[in-house]
Each structure stands twice: as C-alpha cells, then as structure tokens.
C-alpha cells in the first residue's frame, strides 16, 4: 500500500532525446505539503523532469508515480489535479486577464459559476483585480507570471509545478511572486519548482536536490546542504587584476578549509571570516576589497560541480 502522503515518487527515472540523455536515472519522493526544489544550471535536466511529472513527456525508462497513478496511462486524470506554471508563458494574449482564467477553468470541466467565483478570488490573490478586464498583451512580465500562477490554481490543484517561476523578472517582481508562493506554501499547497536562482531555492524550498548533468549531485534542506558542503562563512577577496594570480598562490599558505579561485574573485571557505581576513593581512596581502558573508547554496553548487550556477 503506497503511502498517501507521498505525492510523487521516482525510481531510476531516465529521459533521453535520441542519443542525448537529459535525465540520467534519478530517485526522489515528494511529500504532501512540502516545497521541493530542483536546483541546477540550464541544461541540468530540471525542465525535462518537470515535464515528466507534468505528464506531458513519457519517461524513457524508470518508474514514476504521481498521486499514486501512472503518468502515461492516467495522464489525463493526474493532470486534472495538477497546477502547472510553465517556464514560458502560455497565456492567451488576445483574451483579457479574466477570460484567460475562465477558458482555463473550462479545460478542467468546472462549472462556469464556480470558475467565475474562483477567478475573482485568484485575481485578488495575485493582485490583478484592477486589471481583470484588460487584455493580457500589455501586462508586464511580472503580472503575466502572476496571472499564470492564478491560472494554475483554478482547479484547486493537489500539486503545483513551477518551472523557473521567476526567470526573466526584475528583482521587485520576483519578490512579489515569492511572497505569493510563500503564502500558498503556508496554506499547505505542495510546491515543486525548478530554479537556477539559489536565493529562490533558499527562500522557498523545504527540501531540494542539486541537479547537474541529468543527475542529483546532492539533496537535503538548504541548511543541511550548506552545513554539509560548505563552511559557515565565506571571505570574498578581490585583488588588482595584475596581482590576482600571485595573491592566489600566496593564499595557499593561509589556513582555510577550501579556496576557490574564480576569474574575478578569490573565495576562502572558513569558520570565521574576520579571523581569516586578519590572517590574510598577516601574510602581507592587502586585497582591494573584501567581503565576509554566510555560505549560500551557490557555494554548495560550486563545491559539488566546480562551476557557478548563474553563468
């Protein structure tokens, strides 16, 4: 008897496109009420995974169960209970904001009166009530995203799938979206999202997997991952370009847990940033700028893959 609180489970899940392997055998379980994230750079296999979970992409191999059902045989039934926020907007730009919700609600076979009622509530929720009768075309990117989120909730879904929900938005618009998603999470909606923004993953995800090359490099809560793969603090140093390499060599003598030499900066992974900075100066090095910060998922990613996330 499957556990009713496991909404999605995957074992050895593989997706190939011809010779190319997008998802190379992954295992995961997503629980009711949690916010689960797939963090990774472009091409890591996140969207391919999302599309398989969204029942619009049959797995090449492996097992996938969503709401206890088979996505290939029962795709239609599963999709009736999913909300999907795709990476690219698929709104009907020729219809009004409200019409987009009405049309979408009809796809789920909901009665018109119920859709109307929900449309008003959802537009209120995503702060678009005053634009309800405007066409979608002239809306800003952030408003379109919020409308897409409202649309994805019209069937009151068990699981909300968000594929890079804030990619392409300006910082302020991102925060509005995060705020709405956080409220949904508070209401107990199960969120599954992909992102290549570490701050998004940290803000929203209870649990996440770091994905790279179609596989999981690590999994855990943001805090667990940082504790496991990084140090409490990071000292970021910038030197004059001429001195950059030399400084990197000299820093090898400073006692640190780990050192990352990037093109423009040098990162020292240490328990205490200020102590480390004093030690750097003790070795006769004077950085042009220095910054002590807490470790983030970006550092976890760098450690696991040797690359930066947002390049």
């Amino acid at each position, binding site marked *: 008897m499957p556990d009713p609180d496991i909404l999605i489970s995957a074992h050895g899940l593989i997706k190939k*496109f011809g010779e190319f392997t997008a998802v190379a055998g992954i295992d995961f379980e997503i629980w009711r009420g949690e916010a689960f994230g797939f963090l990774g750079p472009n091409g890591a296999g996140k969207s391919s995974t999302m599309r398989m979970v969204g029942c*619009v992409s049959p797995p090449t191999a492996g097992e996938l169960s969503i709401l206890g059902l088979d996505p290939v045989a029962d795709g*239609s*039934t599963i999709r009736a209970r*999913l909300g999907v926020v795709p990476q690219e907007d698929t709104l009907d730009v020729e219809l009004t904001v409200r*019409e987009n919700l009405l049309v979408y609600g*009809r796809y789920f*076979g909901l009665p018109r009166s119920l859709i109307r009622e929900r449309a008003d509530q959802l537009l209120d929720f995503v702060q678009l009530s005053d634009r309800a009768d405007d066409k979608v075309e002239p809306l800003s990117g952030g408003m379109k995203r919020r409308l897409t989120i409202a649309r994805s909730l019209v069937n009151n879904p068990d699981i909300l799938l968000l594929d890079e929900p804030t990619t392409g938005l300006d910082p302020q618009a991102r925060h509005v979206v995060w705020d709405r998603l956080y409220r949904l999470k508070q209401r107990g909606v199960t969120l599954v999202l992909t992102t290549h923004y570490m701050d998004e993953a940290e803000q929203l995800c209870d649990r996440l997997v770091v994905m790279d090359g179609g596989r999981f490099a690590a999994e855990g809560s943001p805090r667990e991952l940082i504790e496991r793969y990084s140090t409490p603090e990071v000292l970021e140093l910038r030197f004059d370009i001429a001195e950059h390499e030399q400084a990197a060599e000299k820093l090898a003598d400073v006692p640190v847990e780990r050192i990352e030499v990037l093109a423009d900066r040098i990162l020292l992974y240490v328990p205490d940033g200020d102590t480390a900075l004093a030690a750097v100066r003790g070795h006769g090095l004077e950085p042009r700028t220095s910054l002590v910060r807490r470790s983030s998922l970006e550092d976890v990613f760098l450690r696991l893959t040797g690359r930066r996330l947002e390049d």
Partner: protein
Amino acid sequence: MTSVATPATGARSSGPAHGWWALGLREFWFWLTNYRRTWRGSIYSSVLNPVLYLGAMGLGLGTLVDQRGTAALGGVSYLAFIAPGLLAAAAMETGLSESTYPVMGSVKWRKTFYAAAATPLRPADIFHGHLMFTTMRLVMNSTVFLIVMSAFGAVRSPWAAATIPVGVLTGLAFATPVEAWAITLSKETMFAVLFRFGMIPLFLFSGTFFPLSQLPGWARPIAYVTPLWHGVALARSLSLGHPTLAGTAVHVGYLAAIALAGILAGNLTYRRRLYV
C-alpha cells in the same frame, strides 16, 4: 476512441468522464471564446467572397460564356454551373486556412496548445476540439455561400440544401490531413507553398470553372483523385438537381475516407508534438 476511467476527484475538477468528444468540446469552447473577438470580420468575408466570385465569374464572365452556348456545361447557365463548384472551393479554402496558420500560432507563437496539454486534455482532444471549430466555420461559410447563391438565382433544385454538408465534408477532407501535417512543422514557410502550388492549381483545375472534359486526357485522372473535384462534382449534382446514388456514394466515401485518414494521422502527430 476510448475514454480513461476517472476516479472521483470531488468538485475539484474532472478528467475524462464521458465520450471521446467531451474533452475535445472543452478545446472547442476555447476556440469559440477567441472567435467571439473576430466573428464580425469573418462574417463580412464569408459574404463578400461569394458575392465577388458569383458577380465577376458567374454574371460577368458568365454572360460571355452563355452567348456561346452551354452544351458542354450540361445546358445550364455558367452561373448555375460554377456556383456549387465555388461553394466547394470556398470550403477547401476555409479548411486550409483553419488548419494552417492558427495551428502554427497555437503551438509556436501563442503556445496555447501547450497550456491546454497541461490540463486533462490529451493531444488528440486538442486536435478534435479544433476540428470541431473548423467544422463550425465550414457550416457557417457554406450556409452563407448557399444563401448568396440563391440570391443570385444560381440554385436549380431543393437538393441544393445538401451542399452545406458537402461543403463541410470537402473542407474537412482538406483540414484534417493538412492539420496533421501542420502540427509537425517548426516554421510556417511551407504554408505559402501549399497555398500557391497546392490550393490554387486545385482551385483552377478541379472542375470548378470548366468541366473536366475540357482538360487533356492525361490530366483528367489527376483531377479525379483530388478531393476538390469530388466536392465540386457532388455539390454541382445536388445544386442542379440530378444527384445519383452511386455518384454520391463514391464522392462522399472518398472525401470521408480522406478526412478520417487525416484524423488518424493527426492523433499521432499531435501526440508527437505535444508530448515530447
């Protein structure tokens, strides 16, 4: 066409529950919602198209033709001869225009097919829903065409009422295979080729404007296999009031077979495009 059994999901939403058409109907409703914005303009062109063609070809050119004698046309006026042919040709045009750019737009520009694919609708439902809309447009245009034909005095028999379903069938014989093909394309450039080298030659050489007996012998078999000729011949036999059972059966059977083959092909190609 089977429907998947659905466990109850409360008032939340419902997956496939009724016949195969139930989910397609939801997509049809989507097209209808969009059409509410543009229907006025489309009605004008539905009326204008037969008025212009029947006026210029039927009355204008027809006067000259009729003076030379119309034995080759079966003894009817040129207007009465070409009107049902033009009805069938207009249905072809409607079928082709609905199954090309709107499909490309839905999958590439507006991406609304992907939005629908994320709901209980399956690719085939999305396809069928759009075909329902195309069918509605064919009914509308063929009806308007017949009304204009009658106003021009180009109808010779009450059988002419049956040219409306003939228009629908002719349009679908073009729409279903072309839509099955259109969904596989990544660029719209081939549509211009289809219209220029497919539709226009058919329009000119499928017996719409002159009987096939005027074609050289080698070209006639080519005309016989084109769906438009069957549509034209059938519509004409009805409008002039001399349909035969055998002829009607052949024409209907041929057009229906092509339309059905297009539906089966589209069921596959829609799935291939929308379920990557």
